[in-house]
């Protein structure tokens, strides 16, 4: 890449260097939680509720305790002695760790069995006898607030219904006026079902409490180790766990996607068990527990309306959403944003006004919902707007691309203030869509579609031009349980010019060990191979809020650049000392300071590092290191335009994604190969809910999609060949102009695919299909006149 400032050996920004972490991953030598083995370690397994809502009449542990290898059974009563039977959620709600008198969702933790090995505890949970008395259930969120609905959270004082919160944004009256004065109003109820991150590695921990020192060490699958430690200190301080005695280690993680942000009851039970017994306790979920009980994502019922003029001008947007939070609001949103960044729903378009409201309700389902590879409800917002824009195009019979082009926020309008209060940092939406259309041959596709339709074949073209909002976030607005959402970098240059860099974030596959090293290489000229990156150990890493919501590059990546700049400022003083000149006479080029006009008279960053420990100037501290806590001035707004082409088998309803062109703009790129990998993975995780994945419940609240038999994670066979391209619009406020990319494809892919399927069927009068678009839904749309 000609634009790179550094050589491939240094490997700064723009170089597709191979990932440093892959050397251990592809050899199977990563260390995941289940690889952690401690002397004397015991195992834990969990008894789970078969009912969605039931009174617990009794728990008999006698037979379990008599089973060889079983050492203890922990119930809610056990935890209550330590006041640990309840815990706070990240949204300041509460949830049970273990129940005392009733269960509120199927697969809820009821008791835990501790034993000498996995087999004995697996047998042990079968032998715990629990007597239940089923209670009426609330499954349908629309019925949750009916006057005759049972109150699920009767444990909460003052909770007189299943309504949790109401949140709104935008100008209601002004939006209503726009609706009254527009030519066309298009409406649709759009449902984004419950899905699950289904990461390869399930959740688990090893908790080790040393009774002699009072030290607790927890190896756990967490995306936010520091926050977890602080929460542990806050909720378990009364039993003697104080923050300096708690060490949380997040080892290698096999996929997080937001599902490893929350604190699950299993972690707390394992910690309690190790504190009580003084033994290391290992708990690892199996796949069904992971799918059935851990936090879900999505589950938004959105009543969407757009007001437009006949010429295609989009005027106003109104969305009223019902959020099914399950038994507790255990979402992982910033505190002030109960519906996350859902108000980004005006998307890439210059609406005059918008009003959006969300109501959260309790139901008898597992608590959530996490931001699955999505910056807090942005997937839902993008789905709503991108579906609705297509519906307007269909209504006024305008090409979907043309309608988008007509209404995009123009590139000279940035920074752009959206009607729901966001300040978009930068964008060039026309360029991205045009590039996608040119790459895929949009006009030829339209022709092909016309011909095929005449022959009775079904082919569709779908566009999604999304705008993301990531990188939470500025401290004035963003915190989790009061902790501001900055992130951090601590960089130490060793005497030989090598470096160690530590961060408050935690990679789960994103490639931080490589990309952070590349940022440092770019800033200091130290080859990326000479920079070790460490994360995930609260004893060594600087404080930070972790990795999710595409925030690592926008926050910790920025912190790395800023820390490097502090180091460079000191390096300049040392260079002046070594070159016997003044700082003003020095200039920097990658990796060295030289005397202006005398390029031969130079010292490298490695020379300077050595001098920092062997020959530092008088009056300056020895050493060469810096720490930076980066508080972003704004969020970043990655965007892109995706075009999907689908073919439909009318006999079976099968949808085949024939082509998919993804043009992404994530600002300046650190490692193009890693970005492309992120996009491939994210697109596949966007294909998944569009066509395959859903966790559903029957009328009794039984999970009907709680294993990989029914929860259909697509494989390579289902995944189309992804075509990718990019535009680059740097973020003006980020130190290296980067925006974050991990989540864009997950957010952007589903509406592109749905729009393509609906387009293929539009001549039959089809306006909308909810995801997942199963073959049956398509088959019914085609054969609706033939079947009763």
């Amino acid at each position: 890449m000609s634009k790179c400032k550094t050589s491939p050996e240094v490997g700064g920004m723009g170089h597709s260097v191979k990932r440093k972490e892959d050397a251990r991953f592809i050899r199977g030598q990563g260390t995941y939680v289940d690889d952690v083995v401690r002397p004397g370690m015991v195992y834990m397994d969990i008894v789970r509720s078969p009912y969605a809502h039931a009174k617990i009449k009794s728990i008999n542990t006698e037979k379990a305790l008599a089973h060889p290898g079983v050492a203890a059974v922990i119930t809610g009563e056990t935890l209550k002695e330590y006041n640990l039977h309840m815990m706070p959620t990240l949204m300041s709600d509460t949830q049970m760790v273990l129940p005392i008198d009733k269960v509120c969702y199927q697969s809820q933790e009821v008791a835990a069995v501790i034993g000498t090995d996995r087999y004995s505890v697996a047998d042990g949970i079968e032998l715990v006898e629990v007597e239940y008395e089923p209670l009426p259930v609330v499954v349908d969120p629309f019925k949750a607030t009916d006057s005759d609905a049972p109150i699920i959270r009767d444990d909460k004082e003052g909770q007189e219904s299943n309504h949790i919160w109401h949140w709104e944004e935008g100008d209601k009256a002004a939006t209503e006026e726009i609706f009254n004065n527009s030519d066309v109003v298009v409406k649709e109820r759009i449902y984004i079902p419950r899905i699950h991150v289904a990461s390869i590695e399930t959740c688990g921990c090893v908790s080790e409490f040393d009774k002699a020192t009072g030290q607790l060490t927890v190896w756990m699958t967490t995306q936010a180790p520091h926050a977890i430690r602080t929460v542990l200190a806050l909720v378990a301080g009364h039993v003697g766990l104080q923050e300096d005695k708690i060490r949380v280690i997040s080892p290698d993680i096999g996929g997080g996607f937001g599902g490893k942000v929350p604190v699950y009851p299993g972690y707390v039970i394992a910690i309690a068990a190790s504190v009580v017994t003084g033994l290391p306790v290992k708990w690892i979920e199996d796949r069904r527990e992971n799918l059935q009980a851990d936090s879900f994502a999505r589950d938004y019922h959105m009543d969407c309306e757009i007001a437009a003029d006949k010429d295609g001008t989009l005027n106003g947007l109104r969305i009223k959403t019902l959020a099914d939070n399950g038994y507790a609001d255990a979402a992982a949103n910033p505190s002030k944003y109960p519906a996350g960044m859902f108000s980004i729903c005006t998307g890439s378009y210059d609406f005059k006004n918008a009003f959006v409201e969300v109501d959260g309700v309790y139901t008898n389902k597992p608590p959530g919902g996490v931001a699955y590879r999505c910056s807090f409800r942005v997937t839902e917002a993008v789905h709503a707007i991108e579906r609705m824009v297509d519906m307007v195009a269909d209504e006024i019979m305008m090409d979907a691309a043309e309608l988008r082009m007509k209404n995009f926020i123009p590139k000279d309008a940035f920074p752009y203030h959206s009607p729901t209060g966001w300040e978009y940092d930068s964008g060039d939406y026309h360029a991205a869509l045009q590039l996608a259309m040119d790459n895929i041959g949009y006009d030829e596709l339209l022709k092909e579609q016309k011909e095929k339709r005449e022959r009775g074949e079904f082919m569709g073209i779908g566009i999604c031009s999304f705008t993301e909002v990531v990188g939470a976030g500025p401290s004035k607005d963003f915190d989790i349980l009061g902790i501001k959402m900055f992130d951090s970098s601590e960089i130490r240059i060793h005497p030989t010019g090598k470096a160690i860099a530590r961060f408050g974030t935690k990679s789960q596959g994103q490639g931080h060990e490589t990309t952070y090293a590349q940022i440092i290489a770019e800033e200091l000229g130290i080859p990326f191979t000479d920079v070790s990156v460490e994360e995930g150990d609260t004893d060594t890493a600087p404080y930070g809020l972790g990795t999710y919501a595409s925030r690592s590059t926008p926050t910790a990546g920025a912190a790395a650049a800023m820390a490097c700049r502090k180091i460079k400022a000191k390096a300049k003083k040392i260079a002046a000392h070594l070159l016997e000149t003044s700082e003003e006479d020095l200039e920097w080029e990658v990796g060295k300071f030289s005397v202006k006009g005398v390029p031969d008279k130079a010292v490298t960053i490695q020379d300077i590092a050595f001098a920092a420990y062997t020959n530092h100037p008088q009056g300056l501290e020895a050493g060469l290191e810096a720490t930076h806590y980066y508080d972003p001035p704004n969020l970043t707004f990655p965007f892109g335009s995706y075009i999907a082409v689908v073919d439909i088998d009318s006999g079976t309803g099968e949808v085949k994604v024939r082509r998919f062109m993804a043009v992404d703009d994530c600002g300046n790129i650190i490692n193009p190969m890693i970005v492309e990998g992120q996009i491939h993975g994210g697109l596949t995780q966007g294909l998944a809910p569009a066509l395959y994945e859903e966790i559903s419940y029957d009328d009794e609240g039984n999970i009907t999609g709680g294993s990989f038999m029914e929860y259909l994670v697509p494989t390579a066979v289902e995944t189309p060949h992804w075509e990718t391209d990019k535009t680059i619009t740097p973020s003006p406020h980020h130190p290296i102009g980067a925006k974050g990319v991990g989540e864009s494809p997950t957010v952007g892919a589903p509406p592109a695919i749905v729009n393509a399927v609906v387009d293929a069927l539009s001549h039959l009068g089809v306006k909308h299909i909810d995801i997942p678009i199963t073959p049956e839904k398509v088959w019914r749309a085609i054969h609706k006149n033939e079947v009763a």
Partner: protein
Amino acid sequence: MIPGAFDYHSPKTLDEAINLLNDLGEDAKILAGGHSLLPMMKWRLAEPAHLVDISRLSDLDYIKEENGFLCLGAMVTESGLENSELIAEKYPILKDTSEVIADPLVRNLASIGGNIAHGDPANDHPATMLALNAIVVVCGPNGSKREINIDEFFLGPLWTALGENEILTEIKIPMPKQQSGGCYIKLERKVGDYAIAASAVTLDFENGKCSSSGIALTNVGPTPVRAKDAQDVLIGTDVSNEVIEQASNLAAEASQPVGDHRGSEEYKRGVVKTLTGRAILKAKNRAMGGN
């Protein structure tokens, strides 16, 4: 996902295996490829006290033509079928079938005997074997051996004519006539899934007319379903598009689907119709020398 405790037995000979079954009674289960039984055990839906592992009985792993039959040893793996030249050349319906079972990792271990003996109407070989008019060879105590017509083998969900102390040892399939073709088409939600529905079709032609046919359906009934009326309507015809349409409708009528995650009853009947039509057409093309 951890099974209950069980004892493991690894007999060296078929007789030894049968004797074990005889002695252990209903607490014993045969472990062949393990790809139906072990998942059930991991979910504790099955908790046999004894597993009798027949995977080391190498004398049950053969594919050969003998006395007018294709003989498949019970321990032939799906990948063994998939990669056999004889199967590809003369019995493409069997290749069609094994290729759409689960995924390659499973097919390397899963056995054809297990696929049939498990008695699961969602498994793929049962319908194919009905369409092929196969014979199931079963061995029991004291050297006893009997042959069961495939139509008498499947009695209900996970229920077959196999006795507790018997082992399915071989499947015999009549060798194809001069002009014959077969085909198996399956619709699945994603690779590795059980069928939404699948259709197995075999056709024999004499002098341009269909002389015999076999049509059977996967996962649309308590057992694999033979669509007899659909078979009959093809006989004596040249299997024109009109006749195919008729047969497809009859197959849809013969199916007994229940609604579930894979689709409603109505949809599954629609799929049976579509797949049967396509399978008949393909079987006809193969009979005529095409692919």
